[in-house]
């Protein structure tokens, strides 16, 4: 009887002069249920924010973060950074552009950009919940939000200034608009989905994977209507959005570098073995992945609307990144929303089955809810418990893998390795930058082993730094890095005044580490800065390992 909107029911009740109490009870019930839902949403979002903000500024930037922040500072008009960081590196610049707007307000620092990532991360939580609600109702929506909020993998990625987090947000936004389109096909919704997919590309070019997934979806999901007009307009919107990247290169003079970058990407050697992405599973949460498998089976059997899209997206993304030789820990982040949806769907399906199977409906419902809650707590505890140090931990291999500039596998994990390859940043980066700013002349030049520390020195130290290991062959290097053709000549002519050793790069490229130390000995290197960290030995003693060493050299 009273099942429509409150005011409608009330008018009907007043006209008929009965059932007013039931109308009010029904309305109150709906109000309470809605309030409960929004309170639950608010709590989940608060949890998401809290997990992403906790100790966010504990460590300084890692290499990739330093590059992105440096580029953003250059875009924001800071000339000292513009001289050190070319505005074109390897990727489209939407994220850099957004951070540059923030820098125009806050000035250059290493916290504000991470807050931008956090905002995108929390946004992904909200959008994931919206998708689940649209697809399967509020329970699935809420569970999807909870999974994305507490799963270690998206938490870790969204705490760092990486391009993948914002890309995953726009990925999720595209899914949301497609979900809305599936529920009620409207042209404007489809155009918005195309625009979101374009923004995902402008965040990171690997979002192009959305295109084959969506096309496959529309081909396979015959129940989802698509007119030629809407398709054409959507395609136009998508292309117009992503055109910002090539057009900006064309008018700004970066096409040559873009070509070199494309060739370099094609020729990069594998940096991890094929089983590398299994390391992501524990970070997502083994129970979550298991539930997602259940949800996948259900989706495949159901084959409704967006189920097909999620399956297509999952297959395309996993297949591509598995085949692509260069692997990164954060590359699978676009799958978090689909996986969370599947996991939530799977969990709700299990609880519904339990309810149906149980003779005591009321008891079973409570049992189901309790089971769901316990499962999720266990999931988050397992995921968050993995790791070595810091509040939010991560597998050691994953730490290393977030440095996209490194291409070699270390043969062993060296002492001090973890201190220079840390979750949420590097412990050594701020102190070394501060020392450099205070103790060296503004036009000093540094030579490092690899580009990782060079990027950090340039961002935190505001000094030019070059890397020995950058290949002189343009086919084998990131084209925005400057190779050092003759380091000996640079040292002899006093063009470089400092040599920098770091344990992380030394482990990855022992050859160039030896070369750097040979220059230290040849040119009267004097140790002027040493970051040493205590390391517990197997026999119980404590020794100090060098993390970053700076030598002043004299020809």
């Amino acid at each position, binding site marked *: 009887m009273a099942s429509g909107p409150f005011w409608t029911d009330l008018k009907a009740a007043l006209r008929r002069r009965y059932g007013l109490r039931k109308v009010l009870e029904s309305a109150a019930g709906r109000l309470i249920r809605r309030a409960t839902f929004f309170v639950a949403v608010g709590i989940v979002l608060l949890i998401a924010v809290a997990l992403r903000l906790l100790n966010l500024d504990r460590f300084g930037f890692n290499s990739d973060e330093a590059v992105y922040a440096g580029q953003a500072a250059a*875009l924001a008009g800071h000339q000292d950074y513009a001289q050190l960081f070319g505005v074109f590196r390897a990727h489209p610049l939407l994220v850099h552009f957004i951070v540059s707007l923030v820098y125009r307000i806050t000035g250059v620092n290493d916290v504000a950009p991470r807050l931008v990532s956090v905002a995108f991360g929390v946004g992904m939580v909200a959008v994931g919940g919206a998708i689940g609600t649209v697809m399967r109702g509020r329970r699935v929506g809420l569970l999807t939000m909870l999974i994305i909020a507490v799963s270690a993998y998206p938490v870790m990625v969204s705490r760092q200034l990486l391009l993948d987090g914002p890309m995953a947000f726009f990925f999720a936004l595209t899914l949301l608009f497609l979900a*809305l389109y599936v529920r009620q096909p409207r042209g404007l919704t489809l155009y918005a989905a195309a625009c979101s997919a374009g923004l995902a590309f402008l965040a990171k070019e690997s979002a192009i994977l959305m295109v084959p997934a969506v096309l496959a979806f529309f081909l396979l999901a015959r129940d989802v209507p698509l007119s030629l007009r809407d398709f054409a307009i959507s395609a136009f919107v998508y292309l117009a*959005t992503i055109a910002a990247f090539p057009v900006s*290169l064309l008018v700004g003079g970066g096409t040559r570098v873009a070509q070199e970058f494309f060739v370099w990407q094609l020729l990069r050697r594998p940096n991890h073995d094929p089983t590398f992405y299994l390391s992501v599973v524990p970070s997502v949460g083994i129970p979550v992945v298991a539930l997602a498998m259940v949800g996948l089976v259900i989706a495949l059997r159901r084959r409704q609307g967006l189920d097909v899209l999620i399956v297509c997206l999952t297959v395309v993304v996993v297949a591509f990144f598995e085949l692509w030789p260069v692997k990164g820990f954060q590359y699978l982040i676009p799958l978090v929303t689909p996986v969370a949806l599947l996991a939530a769907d799977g969990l709700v399906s299990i609880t519904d089955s339990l309810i149906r199977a149980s003779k005591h409906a009321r008891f079973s419902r409570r049992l189901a809810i309790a089971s769901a809650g316990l499962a999720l707590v266990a999931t988050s505890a397992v995921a968050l418990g993995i790791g070595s140090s810091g509040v939010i931990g991560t597998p050691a291999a994953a730490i290393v893998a977030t440095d996209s500039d490194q291409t070699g596998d270390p043969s062993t994990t060296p002492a001090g390795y973890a201190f220079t390859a840390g979750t949420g940043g590097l412990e050594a980066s701020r102190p070394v930058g501060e020392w450099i700013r205070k103790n060296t002349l503004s*036009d000093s030049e540094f030579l490092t082993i690899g580009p990782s520390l060079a990027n950090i020195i340039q961002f935190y130290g505001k000094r030019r730094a*070059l890397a020995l290991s950058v290949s002189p062959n343009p086919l084998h290097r990131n084209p925005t890095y400057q190779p050092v053709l003759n380091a000996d000549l640079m040292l*002899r002519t006093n063009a470089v005044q400092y040599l920098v050793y770091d344990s992380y790069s030394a482990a990855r490229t022992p050859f160039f580490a030896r070369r750097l130390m040979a220059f230290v000995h040849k040119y009267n290197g004097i140790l002027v800065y040493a970051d040493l960290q205590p390391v517990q030995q197997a026999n119980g003693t404590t020794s100090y390992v060098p993390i970053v060493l700076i030598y002043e050299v*004299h020809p």
Partner: protein
Amino acid sequence: MTAVRLAAACLVSLVLLLAGSGVAQAANSPAPPPPPILYTVKPGDTLSTIARDQLGDPGRWREIYRLNRSQIGDDPNILYTGEILILIPGTPRPRVVSTLPPPQASHSGPLPIDTGAASHIKHVFVIMQENHTFDNYFGTYPGADGLPIGASVPIDPARTAGGTVKPYHLSALRTQDLDHSQNSARAAFDGGLMDGFVVTQQHHNLPGSLALGYYNGTDLPYYWYLASNYVLADRFFSSAIGGSLANHQFWVAGLDSNQGETIPAQGIQMTTIFDRLQGAGVSWKFYVKNYDPQLDFRHLDPTNPRDSEVAWVPLLTIPSVVDDPTKRAHIQDLGNLYQDLVDGTAPAVSYIIQGGTSEHPPGHVGNGENATMGIIDSIMRSHAWNDSAIVLTWDDWGGWYDHVVPPQVDREGYGFRVPTLIISPYARKGYILHQTADFTSILKFIERLHGLAPLTTRDQAASDLMAAFDFQQPPRAPSRPQVASAGVVPARGPSAARLLEMYGLVSGLAVLLLLLAGLTERKRRARRRSEL
């Protein structure tokens, strides 16, 4: 008739008299000294084979090397085809000795401290390079007393129609070593006529025209940069009209040993500025690049490529220093300077010698400049910069031409002008110091800073370089030229402005579209609820 005969007789007598005096004069004139026996290097020659073929004993290669050390360089194995070596030296020309008295020990009391300088300058670094004149390095520097327009030197002053050589720009940064002995210097000086630069080199079978070569700012960009940002002295003379040893002795002691370029077996006892500093409790060190502590006046070894350090570090010829471990410990390798700068323990007075990168021909002047830049750069990067004064100078003329006649203040000098730069946070920017000075002015500067007594009449009378400083100005931050990174491929990229425009436009439109889609969806849902 008688008068005619008488006149004729007088005329004949006069003629005979004149002829006789001419004969007598010719008879009394000393015979020219026998010239040296020379040899021109041929392809495949080594010192051993030359000694074997020319002198009959391959073991006499050491003699040949010793006679030609300044030309061959540190490695006796490197000979160039066409090089002219002296196998047997000729008898030296009689030494032209000035009639002026030599510098004497000073009996003056301590000089008054220049309080302005003393309160601002706590570290003095004196870098001594080798063998170039002012005109050779800065002859074309704008505003300086450089090469005059139309300057030239006769090829042979004795022959008026012998032609002249004009100054010309050198194309090579590495040249043959010219003779720069005291005799050659005096011959070039020629009593103030300054016309013997070419002929004296030719007398040594060396290319005389080389002496008129000069470098400019493109060859020596760092030194010219220092000149334009700090102080260049264009009336700074070497102290002695001679070579390295005498001038280095003036540099530390205010006089020379009157032994020419010879180090006697018993050493040379003299009082130096370091004795004054030691007595006053002022810290000092003598830094030597690639220092060999085995070498001193008792342990000379011509085959040791570092043998020259004994001449360039006069302390190593002084028995009271060589035999005193505490004093000798002040002579250290140049590497210690960098450590001292980093540690903040650089002494109050530092003398610095660079050895192989001293720019002494045939050394590469660019290498020397780079090495000097490294030293000055290290000082600038250290905390010592804020209260330092760096004097960069060259020890002697090296055989090169300079047009300014050096005043003769005593028996030994002055010698020809040498380039001198004064670098300090308090040095006047781009200033050319026209005040007459020499190496003893450096001694005077140190003495005025610490209230020390002069060593000799030379430094007592010398100027003190204070005119190069302005202690009223705030201390200047160190400045160094942007060194082109020679070994780097420059990065390229698009302009930021275009990027900002494109991304801003797209982002703005995208946000509008998304908001529009979201709002219309919300309205549609609200309408649907109301229809239900």
